């Protein structure tokens, strides 16, 4: 089963995402901030990352840069709810840094799952 890392400081969103992914038969690894995600990153077990952008410790942009460095083939989806720095600019920056997809909160969980499937499907074919 493909492994998905969820990086999100908001516990309720993290749990909601986890439940939804488990229902779709993915293996889920959780991290509650960017630093946690980078330090405990397991390249062999992780195929895709869903990361929030504005978080304490290291933020989502750092996660994207670092994890792409550690595992270039990894797929990344960035999600953000808009904050003081402006969500659109942050999300665009995430895309520029190599995120494969970006979502603004609140997003449709079904859309997100469909995107994950699509990204992992492409992965298998290539």
């Amino acid at each position: 089963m493909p492994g998905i890392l969820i990086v999100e400081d908001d516990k309720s969103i993290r749990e909601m995402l986890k439940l939804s992914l488990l229902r779709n038969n993915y293996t889920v690894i959780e991290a509650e901030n960017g630093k946690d995600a980078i330090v405990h990153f397991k390249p062999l077990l992780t195929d895709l990352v869903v990361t929030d952008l504005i978080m304490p410790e290291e933020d989502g942009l750092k996660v994207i840069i670092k994890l792409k460095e550690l595992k270039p083939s990894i797929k990344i989806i960035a999600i953000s709810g808009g904050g003081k720095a402006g969500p659109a600019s942050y999300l665009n920056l995430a895309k520029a840094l190599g995120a494969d997809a970006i979502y603004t909160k609140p997003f449709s969980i079904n859309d997100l799952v469909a995107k994950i499937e699509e990204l992992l499907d492409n992965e298998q074919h290539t």
Partner: protein
Amino acid sequence: MKRKLEITDGNDFLKYLTKEKDISDQIINHSRSMISIVNRDYIYEKVNSTFCNSHQLVLDTILGKSLGDIWGHDTFQNVIKRNVDLCFSGKTVKYEALFGTPKSGKRHFEVVLRPLSVEPGKITHLLAETFDINDLKKSKQAVKEKEEELRKFETNLPIGFLRCDPKGKILNANKAFLGITECHDEKSINNVNLRSFYLQEQLFDIQIDQLKDCHSMNFGRVSLKNCSGKEIPCRISGFLAVNKSGAPTSIDFAVEDCSRELMLENRLLQAQKLETIGALAGGIAHDFNNILATISGYSEMLHDDLPKNSDLSDKVSKIQGAVKKAQSITNQILTFSRQIEQEKVLTNVSEVLKETIGFVRSSIPSNVELKSRIPKMKANVLADPTQLFRVFLNLMTNAIQAMEEHGGLLSVNISIVEREFVLHELNRAIVADEYVLLTFKDTGEGMDPSLMGRIFEPFFTTRDVGKGTGLGLSVIHGIITEMEGEILVSSKRKEGSVFNVYLPVSKNYSDLKAATVCRKKILFITGNKYESRILSLALESAGYELIYISDERNFVNIITDTKERPDLVIYMSDSRQIKPEDLVKIFSGLKIVTPCILITDSVEELSDEKLLNSGIIKQHLTKPVSLKEIRNAIQELIR
């Protein structure tokens, strides 16, 4: 004292006569006036030495010559002759004239002509006494000029000056005071007590008492009323004059209209309030989006779990619908608080406006007329066209709604205005060179002045509960502010409202680009980064690298780091942390020669000459300052 005359023979008599004649000649010759005797043929028969000396003439060249010979025939015909003829008719004539010889030059003289009779009953000569009044005339003229200058100064100053008696009765008022109080007849003011111009008359009595103690007082802001009873906020100071024994003789008042100042202050306060609400609301919206994400996620899963078209799945759909509505509100709040970045492209405002008008026209109620005048123009601004459409649509819909009940006229206009026009209209430290001005004017319900200051606040609405969220205008405000524009409103109850939207015209700054082949660094010291954004946009697009700072520590770090050292420093006096004198201290302490442009509120602010003479500040600009001025200053300093 009378001399006793004793004459014994004829010889003695002759001697006496000669002696007497000598004395009288001497008296005449030494008189300070110029004396001459002229006969009926206008010929000089006698003149005294003062006459010769004053006009630098020799006696022999005068005697036997006519008035015309000496003073020129033009002067004689035009000035002298008619007075002389009048004198020969038997009158003593006094006149002032400007004449002179080529040698002495023309001067002002006062001339007194007296008829003389050598033969009884017949005027044969006249006696002319001439006084040089040139210096007197000149000093009189100088006094008059000085007086006029003072009067001009006093009448042109926008400050009202009043002299009152010790009880406050107006003795004298200048034009400015008449202007402030809108009393157009000077007489109607004199002898009126200044007290009657006070909105609170008791306050005037208190101030008079204070003046009696202190003699000079600045009373600060006082509300006066004009001749038609309208309130005018003024700043008033008074000065009490006393006589030698200490009794008050008069009171002078200086009255300054500060309604514009008050208006700008209020506007600034509003802007700050909106900024604060924006930051607060933006933070809440962010947290809300997180919560909504959870609600939305679980309800989607729940929806998937439930059998389709069941009663329960319908209920979950309702939850999802509510989430969508909530999301739309948080999005609007984020737009208002300018936390959603607009994708700005060069947009022709008039095209977007035309499009919006076309859209609105199809759905306009029959009792509302829409008039628009959109000339062909190049009104390019940096904007997100969809957002601009949203702004125009919202303003027009609001206007139409305000006229729904009684019908009316909505007029929409667009024009380009130069910075001189907006300089005092917009209260900004930095203004663009040109603005697109869009006017949306309706003849609807209008607003209470007390509400006008609040209409851009989120959730503020004058409509009935349930009709609209009250976010429309705050969203518009957010979009326009994000574009470095401004929206101003004026309104009268039952008469309608006018919304003026100012958007800075986007210019091509390639002229600056040429001057900055290598990226020059500009250090921007300002306490209000938001105000300076229009400048940073322009400079960045011109290829400069901008570094912002607002506190001293960073400043010292940057300025001492040779790699980071800027090519130019722009300092805006609103930065609270770094004062101009600190700047000079740091510069001279570290021996830094980077040129500096200083931008202050007023010229006086730089009264400390030390700053200017320090040689560190190369250019001094006062607010409001246009991009053009700043560009010129920069170009002059970094080549």
